[in-house]
């Protein structure tokens, strides 16, 4: 594992999309950028499985007082708890903190029936912002993404143009998209293409 708990000594390292060109393709009329894609490089991700008895340990390290309900997220500061399934959650934490958080959760869960897995490098997180965000995603996703339905704080695991993704609505015009590292290049290329008509930019 490349990451360590010590943020200061952490080597920058490659990411799933570090080979992709940073570019901005604005619309010809008016030069708008409807979708801005940013890779959340090295964002810590920990898969957590367990029943209600994992709450004390989760509360200690994320600050959330309740586990998220179905299709919901709980965000406290830099840490986000994403509901994935009954008894399964994804914890997002600061880049470089994941190994430390992983071992702390393991310690605090003790004999609780639970599984903690560091999936930081298995998944790639993208931040998507912009007015055209939901229109672009709707091209490849059957989920109802209307702002009145898929509201801020909701999440969904679904399929975006054949690729399995987790969508997290941070706000009306900002999503976090999490996909497998091996699908990241494809998802990036698809988003750049689908967003072309609205203007699109990618910053590594």
């Amino acid at each position: 594992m490349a990451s360590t708990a010590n943020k200061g000594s952490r080597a920058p390292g490659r990411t799933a999309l570090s080979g992709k060109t940073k570019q901005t393709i604005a619309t010809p009329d008016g030069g708008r950028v409807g979708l801005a894609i940013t890779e959340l490089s090295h964002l810590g991700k920990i898969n957590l499985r367990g029943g209600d008895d994992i709450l004390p340990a989760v509360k200690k390290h994320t600050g959330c007082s309740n586990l998220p309900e179905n299709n919901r997220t709980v965000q406290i500061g830099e840490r986000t708890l994403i509901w994935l399934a009954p008894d399964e959650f994804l914890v997002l934490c600061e880049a470089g903190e994941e190994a430390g958080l992983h071992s702390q959760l393991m310690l605090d869960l003790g004999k609780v029936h639970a599984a903690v897995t560091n999936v930081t490098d298995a998944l790639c997180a993208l931040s998507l912002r912009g007015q055209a965000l939901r229109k672009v995603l709707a091209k490849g996703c059957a989920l109802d993404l209307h702002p009145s339905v898929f509201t801020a704080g909701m999440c969904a695991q679904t399929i975006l143009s054949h690729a399995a993704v987790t969508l997290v609505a941070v706000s009306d015009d900002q999503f976090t998209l999490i996909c497998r590292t091996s699908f990241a290049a494809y998802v990036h290329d698809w988003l750049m293409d689908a967003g072309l008509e609205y203007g699109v930019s990618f910053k590594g």
Partner: protein
Amino acid sequence: MLLITCPHCGPREESEFSCGGEAHIARPLAENNLTDAEFADYLFLRDNPKGMFLERWRHAAGCRRWFNMARDTVTHEIVEIYPMGNTPKSKAGKAAHADSWRRDTAAEAAAKPASKSRSKQGG
């Protein structure tokens, strides 16, 4: 395309799911007492009805959890979605469960842990 209501995630399109085929096929516990033909009922034979069918489905691209579904294979109407380990509660689902040829097989009788199931098999 079906719109399937996942018991955990809510309504999602069919392509997110995978179908696991016929539901309520219990594994015989005392398989050594069954003939090969009787064991084949459990292992190989699957129902393919025109009408109400009880199936297992998995929300493969979502929460990855299994559930049961009572679906009409003619109209594609989804009559009921119910948890694994349960039997259907709707009238049509109950009827489909009770009427299945599988209920009368020696393999299913041998899947019940009660001692009477052993005496039923006869030989």
